């Protein structure tokens, strides 16, 4: 084992760099916490309606939020929905949104970007012009238009965001591949008669994947933000669904309490809000650490 595979050595070095970075440690800790909460949600907050565990249980319909008590440790929001339950199951919703949107976007974007960058020519021209068109409208605005056409709902938001977000990955991967395509090791593989698919998968993608990883990690957060804003506006999850954005929307009329105690209902906004911020922060910290770890200028100094 004296001479290990260079790729393995490189991976070990990268992991070492990531672990030494304090922001990565905080990021991964937060992420592990959220992943644990999402995984054990049925144990932490047992669902009242087993057929639809994502609906927050509520006792009564009074619109005025109630402060934390023994039965509702984070209090109840408008409509008497239990905030603790919503926060716990909202973690699952957030992971669902992030993984679905980023997964589809990466898959589509990487495929198109690789094809476009590697083959060039007319295919490249067609794919890039379509990307240009998608590029002209801001993510949120285009996603809103698509959601309106498809109808409301969290699943529609996820589809709309995935339909919009792939354009980033096409551009990033294509520019990476353009610099790799003409390098000696790719040419060598070509002369040896390796198939195009194999060249892309074995030789090009492993060298071009880092920016995609960084982008994907940042996107996990920003997609949750965008989705929660759309839920906040009222395009997403139905009332009472365990979604942090929707919980903020429920609390919207209670940001200012009665005159003698204006911050009376702080928990209705701060708790779901903190969940969103911490979740996004975890991904951004990881993305930031990945950027440092993969930056060739900072490597091996």
């Amino acid at each position, binding site marked *: 084992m004296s001479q290990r595979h260079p790729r393995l050595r490189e991976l070990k070095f990268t992991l070492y760099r990531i672990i030494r970075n304090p922001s990565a440690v905080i990021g991964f800790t937060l992420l592990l916490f959220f992943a644990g909460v999402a995984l054990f949600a049925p144990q932490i907050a047992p669902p009242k309606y087993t057929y639809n565990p994502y609906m927050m249980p509520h006792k009564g319909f009074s619109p005025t939020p109630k402060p934390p008590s023994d039965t509702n440790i984070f209090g109840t929001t408008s409509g008497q929905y239990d905030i603790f339950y919503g926060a716990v199951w909202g973690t699952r919703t957030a992971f669902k949104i992030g993984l679905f949107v980023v997964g589809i976007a990466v898959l589509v974007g990487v495929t198109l970007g690789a094809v476009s960058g590697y083959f060039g020519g007319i295919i490249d021209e067609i794919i890039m012009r379509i990307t240009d068109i998608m590029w002209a*409208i*801001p993510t949120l*605005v285009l996603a*809103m238009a698509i959601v309106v*056409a498809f109808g409301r709902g969290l699943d529609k938001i996820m589809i709309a965001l995935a339909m919009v977000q792939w354009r980033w990955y096409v551009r990033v991967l294509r520019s990476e591949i353009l610099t790799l395509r003409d390098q000696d090791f790719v040419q060598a593989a070509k002369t040896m008669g390796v198939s195009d698919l194999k060249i892309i998968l074995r030789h090009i993608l492993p060298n071009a994947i880092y920016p995609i990883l960084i982008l994907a990690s940042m996107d996990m957060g920003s997609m949750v933000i965008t989705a929660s*804003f759309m839920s906040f506006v009222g395009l997403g999850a139905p009332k009472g669904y365990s979604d942090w954005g929707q919980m903020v929307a429920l609390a919207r009329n209670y940001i*200012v309490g009665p005159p003698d105690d204006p911050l009376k209902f702080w928990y209705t906004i701060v708790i779901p809000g903190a969940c969103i*911020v911490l979740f996004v922060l975890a991904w*951004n910290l990881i993305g930031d650490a990945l950027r440092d770890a993969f930056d060739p200028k900072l490597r091996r100094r």
Partner: protein
Amino acid sequence: MLAYVIRRFFLLFFVLFGVSVLLFGILMTFSPERRAATYVSSPQQAKDIPRIIKKFGLDDPFYVQYVRWIKELSKGNMGWSLVASRPVGEAFWRYLPVTLEMNLFAAPIVILFGIWLGTLAGIHRDTWIDHITRILAIVGWSLPTFLFALVLLMIFYGHFQLFSPGVLSDHLSIFIIDNPDKFTPFTGMYTIDGILNGRFDITLDSLAHLILPVMTYVIVVVALNMRVMRSGIIEELSKEYVTTARAKGADKKTVHIKHARRNALLPVVTVAGQLMAMSMEGSIAVEVVFNRHGIGWWLAESATQLDMPVLMCICLFMGVVFVITNLTLDILYGYIDPRIRLT
């Protein structure tokens, strides 16, 4: 250079054409019955739906309806806005000044503050200044605009009774509605109209209403600008001309400000297009939370009422702005750095 600009102009029209087809395609996913239903207001009229489809040709092939739509657009007819209860074109000009006003105040702060902080972090790399700005950038990046706006509103409006939401205080807007002869809305922006009409109380009042929106906006958008500036400075400081300048005895300030910062501004120009898109998205959240009736608020409100003509109009408008901005930036880029050959 000229050939490049011509090519880009050609591309501009291509992109706009593509965007319009895309938007129209989204609209056409509605069935003809569903689109006809927007003309119907009571259940008794439901039997008119087939007649409406016939009358407006809603079941014609895609390209026929598309050409018809483009013809109407070029005549300036963009449809009817439910939210504004007036034609889309007219409503657009009513809402635009409010958004423009906020951006006019926020953009200079974002640009100057971002460049200043980025330079500071880049020069003092790996010191506490750098670490603090880095943490601030990541946190700013992680803050959803709408949430931050809500918390600001909770603290400043709820707790301290300062800076109420909206564009203008109630008594002043009532005054303006009651006395149309005493206050002429030249621009639609109250800060400027106040000065033009000699009513400085209105200017001050609308400025007070701008403080929280601008603050939200700056804190959320400035991070990108700052990080790009920082990496630009670090990149420039490692170059040979900086070493030469230092060797020739130029003092720190000259090297940083005159040499490095000027060159580091280039990457900032390249992300300006992205900043623009971010500010468009940001203004939606800010306007919704602070109840400022601008383009972003109109968009969100129309989306919840499933008002497709408005969404299409705004998407098209943003597409035009975005494409033209990017074209301008590309040309500007060539001027700032003559080494970049545009082909």
